[in-house]
């Protein structure tokens, strides 16, 4: 119960932060030259000044900036995210449509990065300074240093264009209009390459952290004790070392949930996924302030939720934390 209490307090503390972020973004976007009507004109390939004036009135852009901000915050208090000028729909429904691909992508690549990082980190730590360690560390370095758009494009060239094993982009196959299990498998096939691409950088980080923390824990006294008791090596690693070495890994998940949302802009563009990252990019280019603020709001909620889960996991892994709180 204590842990819930702690998490609840954290949640309450994050609300002012959330408002500050939204106001900050709102003001920051005012510095970008041009508004949504300018962006619209650019898309239309021209139009006259009277039309532009009319459109500005329609979108409430003729009001002063404090007025616009005031309107926005007042709407937000009533849980109304406003109306998207690019999509002609309420922002909430636009975001709701785009949320599933991003959530799927994030979950898939985070779990891939976490588990593959864990395994590789353990293997590297067990064979420290021998060839498996060197190999894994070098790979990790390469994954970390390579930009994800390049990985994505190379993956498309190899697995879609030449081998034709996996689809080159999109969220699902439009032609088949599959349902049920077939659709699930289809979506999964479409997610393999993007999830791997997005996950590789995070994999590299997890691998390094896991390796370091394994090495640290392996040298602690209780491990020596466990060995002295005559436990076999596998048991020592799994039961005693791994559990203790996992704590920094779990910390990272919470931190990286936010980073991942940012990284998904690139991956979603390369793989044509209709996710939140691309939506955010489009709303910046089109100066669709309502949609952008809505995305910031939802992303912040996501990060808060992930951190909440991480807090719970912490308590499970290390009973000292909930006791101490």
């Amino acid at each position, binding site marked *: 119960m204590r842990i819930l209490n702690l998490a609840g307090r954290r949640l309450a503390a994050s609300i002012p932060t959330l408002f500050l972020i939204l106001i900050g973004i709102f003001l920051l976007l005012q510095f970008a030259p041009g508004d949504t009507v300018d962006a619209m004109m*650019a898309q239309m390939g021209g139009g006259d000044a009277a039309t532009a004036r009319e459109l500005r009135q329609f979108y409430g852009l003729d009001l002063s900036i404090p007025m616009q901000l005031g309107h926005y915050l007042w709407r937000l208090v009533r849980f109304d995210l406003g109306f998207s000028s690019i999509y002609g729909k309420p922002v909430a429904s636009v975001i709701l449509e785009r949320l599933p691909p991003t959530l799927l992508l994030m979950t898939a690549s985070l779990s891939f990065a976490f588990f593959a990082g864990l395994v590789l980190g353990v293997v590297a730590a067990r064979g420290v300074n021998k060839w498996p360690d060197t190999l894994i560390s070098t790979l990790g370095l390469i994954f970390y240093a390579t930009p994800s758009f390049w990985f994505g494009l190379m993956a498309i060239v190899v697995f879609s264009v030449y081998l034709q094993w996996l689809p080159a982009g*999109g969220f699902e196959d439009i032609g088949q209009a599959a349902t049920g299990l077939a659709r699930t498998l289809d979506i999964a096939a479409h997610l393999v390459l993007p999830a791997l691409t997005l996950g590789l950088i995070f994999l590299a980080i997890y691998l390094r952290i896991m390796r370091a923390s394994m090495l640290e824990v392996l040298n602690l006294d209780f491990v020596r004790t466990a060995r002295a008791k005559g436990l076999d090596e596998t048991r020592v690693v799994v039961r005693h070392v791994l559990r203790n070495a996992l704590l920094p890994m779990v910390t990272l998940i919470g931190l990286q949930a936010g980073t991942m949302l940012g990284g998904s802009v690139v991956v979603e563009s390369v793989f044509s996924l209709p996710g939140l990252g691309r939506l955010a990019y489009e709303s910046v280019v089109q100066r669709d302030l309502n949609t952008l603020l809505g995305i910031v709001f939802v992303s912040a909620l996501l990060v808060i939720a992930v951190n909440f889960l991480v807090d719970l996991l912490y308590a499970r892994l290390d009973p000292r934390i909930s006791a101490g709180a």
Partner: protein
Amino acid sequence: MPLSRIEISRRTALLTSAAIAANVINPMRAFAQETPRKGGVFNVHYGAEQRQLNPSLQASTGVYIIGGKIQEPLVDLDAAGNPVGVLAESWESTPDGKTITFKLRKGVTWHDGKPFTSEDVAFTAMNMWKKILNYGSTLQLFLTAVDTPDPQTAIFRYERPMPLNLLLRALPDLGYVSAKHIYETGDIRQNPANLAPVGTGPFKFNKYERGQYIIADRNDNYWRPNAPYLDRIVWKVITDRAAAAAQLEAGGLQLSPFSGLTISDMARLGKDKRFIVSTKGNEGNARTNTIEFNFRRKELSDIRVRRAIAHAINVPFFIENFLGDFAKLGTGPIPSTSADFYPGPNTPQYPYDKQKAIALLDEAGLKPGAGGNRLSLRLLPAPWGEDISLWATFIQQSLGEVGIQVEVVRNDGGGFLKQVYDEHAFDLATGWHQYRNDPAVSTTVWYRYGQPKGAPWTNQWGWEDPAIDKIIDDAATEVDPAKRKALYADFVTRANTELPIWMPIEQLFVTVITAKARNHSNTPRWASSTWHDLWLAE
């Protein structure tokens, strides 16, 4: 420049048939008569989503490429670039040019089953073309009424003479018809049909999944017999150009229109037998690269400085090394693809001549100061294309060599338009001028004085010239085609002499299409047209 396959297909493009062009590209396929095959799904690359899809409300290629398959204009252009009836069967003008009568096609129905009548034309013209449609509101400024004596006749009444040729050349882009019964109630801009268009065209709107795809299916009740051939068209939203090229190669796309890929990918796929890479079918969408001068800047209001800048840039070198086969030297605001209005290359030109540029700058009193610097300018490039970005860098380096220091200030679309066309916060700007078949539709607003502040792609340079204004106004209401052509030749001469804008590069958009496609690129605005005859070979 090497005479490549693409170059040949462009030169022959306008006047030859698709068969001859196909012969150039692939001799084996030349005259083999094939029977059109029904069926198939055609996947199209769609680079940027639109806020709406109704071409009666928004004139842009991004809308035509979808809306143009679902809705139809009164008139389109045939292979030779001449107006040909679509929803209109015939037309005539009174000698004074103030009354133009369209006879409409019989037996055409909207996708919801209601009949298409002159009421639809009158409603669309008065409420959409005249009031909302970009470029349309300028074109139809003097339209006072559209009479509908019977369901098959629409009579356009103008306050001032409307040259029939101007109207016919404008209507393929600015003459799409919407259904009155769908739009007559409520706010036109907010009508749900804007995102789920209802038309008379060969394909019926099916689904729009934001961020993913748009689907249209065959219209079984289409008025042209035996058309269309395709079962379905899918536009896939792919914003990343490299990813789109990969999708083409993987078979997920059959077409990337309007130069949707990177220049290097287009050149690479041009060598691949599975694709045809060509500028053919885009003659109606010619564009020129510009240099726009801000006259509020004292130095730039001096004609010698503008001419010096033009002389200082080695345009042929730039084209050969950066744009390759996709561009050629331009000669002014009316591109050479415009058979009706191109005045020929013998108007004032500014060939590369560094010494002359330096002499002109000296003459203008701009002596080299510290470090050889004569003048500092801010250049704002538009973000629409790779070529503009390269061109901006090239201008910067070329002008550096004659002592003009250029700072390139990059913006995204909204920012560029705001700074150049509303705040006038530029010294030089560069972007595209897109020519729309008649100078009165697309071009003269770039030169005519008195454009309202904030209207993009109009004379926002602060340039004023009563002589050119008179030519522009006379030509816009001149009913005699020969006299109009002569007036526009004067216009180009005057524009190139005074040089408020310089348009030294001419380009056509590039189409990348599967070699299995038949009846493609066969009109000057093919990617925007209906695709009723397009089919896919096995």
